[in-house]
């Protein structure tokens, strides 16, 4: 029997789109702020996360 998706804060925090929102906003915000090295690092994370469909 499939366990139902938990209707709680856990659901929001672990939603597949949650990392996308954090990484996307982080990369753009850091680039805007001029923190280039940090922006590149977060951009790397964003690129890695977009491979979520890769197996």
């Amino acid at each position: 029997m499939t366990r139902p998706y938990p209707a709680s804060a856990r659901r929001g925090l672990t939603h597949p789109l949650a990392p996308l929102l954090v990484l996307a906003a982080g990369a753009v915000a850091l680039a805007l702020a001029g923190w280039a090295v940090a922006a590149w690092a977060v951009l790397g994370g964003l690129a890695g996360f977009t491979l979520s469909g890769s197996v």
Partner: protein
Amino acid sequence: MSAVVLYAASGLVAPAPEAVRSGVVVALAAVGVARDAGLVRFPLPQNARQVPREVLTANVARGSLQFGFELGTGVRTYVSSTVPYVLAAALLLSTPDFLTAVLTGTGFGLGRALTPLARFASRAGEAWDTTLRRSLRTVTIGGGLAAAAALALLVFMTG
């Protein structure tokens, strides 16, 4: 590892005008988004094969390392997003310093790990998998758009 190789190779394109290199980066990012949105179609280099299950069953510890290495470096995997290719091209063309290249590569690995971590933390794997499948198009296109915006800012504002 790939980021370090790109860092080393970026010296070959350094003689090209920075404005030209920056323009190419942004153009590639836009094309990447268009490809992920299905507006344009062209193949990307990849070894489109799955890592065999036997890799994990023969020796769990060594198999896990091998699985992670092959999946993470793309030796055998299906690449479902253009963003990593755009990032690789951006690293090559923007000629960042060594620290930036290393941190970008490290970030890539950590980003790659976020998917299984989020799934594990959800404590509802099958339901999470279903939600991920429904969200994949948003992840790839949204990620591409954000990457394009960030790259445009990085290559034109910070130089």
